[in-house]
């Protein structure tokens, strides 16, 4: 008798691929849904504690309460007895400040500071739209604790691309710049465990705040802003303009030697009393 029946497993064999295929497509759809949901969830998760996302709040609080901040402690360089004092208010994440620090400032150091024409003071003025700038000021202040502010200053400005703003000028390269700063700390020979402890605990936050508060006292509203023997220059200035301003200030002081120094507020220059060219924290 002819067997016209299909093989025993034919039915299940025929049905299985289509049911497997249905399950397969179901799994793919599930992966797409979960994948999109995961990305949206991760995007909405809070930034790490290291993020500068609190910069807005910190700036607003300082702007409101700057009078309560203690005396500023700027970072100084050069001959404290020089006839001219250049004071810079800058933001480590500000691209214009970075351009000044890497292009103009080397000439300023070599031809103005090292030649005893002027004494240099750097004040933090972290702006609220730069979310990593507070962290950078924190890193610089911690480097200053180990006597290497200017080394960290140079690393931060020359390395802005690694931790600062994206080319769009609005977003940050990273929300967790600590690892980059740790690399700088190692590169400039800091004790990295001490540095990390200082950085994590924000030990020098009061110093950063006090420097910024000094900017508010003097109506600084952009970075960089310079004061050359008290005369304000808002925005970056080329070397020639700065040199002329220094020469003019020195000449004015020479012609009126009895006049009191126009600039330094109390407590700003206690760090480097040495009367010779020297970089100090």
């Amino acid at each position, binding site marked *: 008798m002819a067997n016209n029946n299909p093989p025993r497993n034919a039915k299940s064999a025929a049905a299985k691929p289509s049911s*497997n295929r249905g399950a397969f497509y179901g799994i793919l759809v599930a992966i797409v849904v979960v994948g999109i949901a995961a990305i949206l969830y991760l995007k909405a998760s809070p930034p790490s504690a290291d993020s500068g996302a609190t910069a807005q709040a910190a700036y607003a609080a300082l702007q409101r309460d700057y009078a309560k901040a203690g005396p500023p402690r700027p970072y100084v360089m050069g001959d404290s007895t020089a006839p001219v004092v250049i004071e810079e208010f800058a933001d480590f994440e500000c691209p214009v400040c970075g351009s000044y620090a890497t292009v103009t400032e080397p000439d300023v150091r070599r031809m103005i500071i090292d030649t005893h024409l002027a004494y240099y003071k750097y004040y933090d003025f972290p702006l609220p739209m730069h979310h990593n700038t507070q962290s950078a000021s924190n890193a610089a202040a911690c480097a200053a604790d180990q006597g290497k502010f200017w080394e960290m200053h140079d690393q931060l400005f020359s390395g802005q691309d690694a931790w600062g703003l994206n080319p769009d000028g609005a977003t940050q390269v990273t929300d*967790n710049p600590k690892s980059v700063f740790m690399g700088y700390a190692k590169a400039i020979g800091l004790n990295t465990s001490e540095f990390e402890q200082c950085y994590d605990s924000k030990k020098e936050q009061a110093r950063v705040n006090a420097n910024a508060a000094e900017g508010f006292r003097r109506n600084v509203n952009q970075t960089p802003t310079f004061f050359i023997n008290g005369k304000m220059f808002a925005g970056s200035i080329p070397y020639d303009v700065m040199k002329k301003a220094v020469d003019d200030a020195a000449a004015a002081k020479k012609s009126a030697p009895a006049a009191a120094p126009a600039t330094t507020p109390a407590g700003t220059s206690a760090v480097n009393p040495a009367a010779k060219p020297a970089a100090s924290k």
Partner: protein
Amino acid sequence: MRRMIIAALALIGVFVALYLTLYKMGVIGHLACGLGGCERVNTSKWAIFAGAPVAAWGVAFYTATFVVALVGTSPSWIDRREIAYLLAGMSFVGVAFTAWLTYLELFVIEAICKYCVTSAVIVTAIFIVSIADVAMGNRVQPGD
């Protein structure tokens, strides 16, 4: 069945690489990275390869793998050996590239990104399954 597994793994890989790509593009402001150095890795100079973010290359790789594997599951292609060889070749390149990236993480950047580790696991699994696909050929297995 093996190509279905490869397609599913590749699709997961697409989303892992897409997340990192969106970060590199600035669409996502920060990486959720409880442990490790995701941002240190992804902001290093090694995160760019041939002018494009490594993560974007990952999206392209996983998408291509997904498409090839998906085509390979269709009835008209399921018996084609070329698909098996192509998947094995592609995933070998993926594994080799991932091995180089893992070396950079461990010994050059000295930071580990958990999303990169996830991707490395996925591409390795794809490679193993694709080798099985080549080795086992048309042997019927449940679900094929």
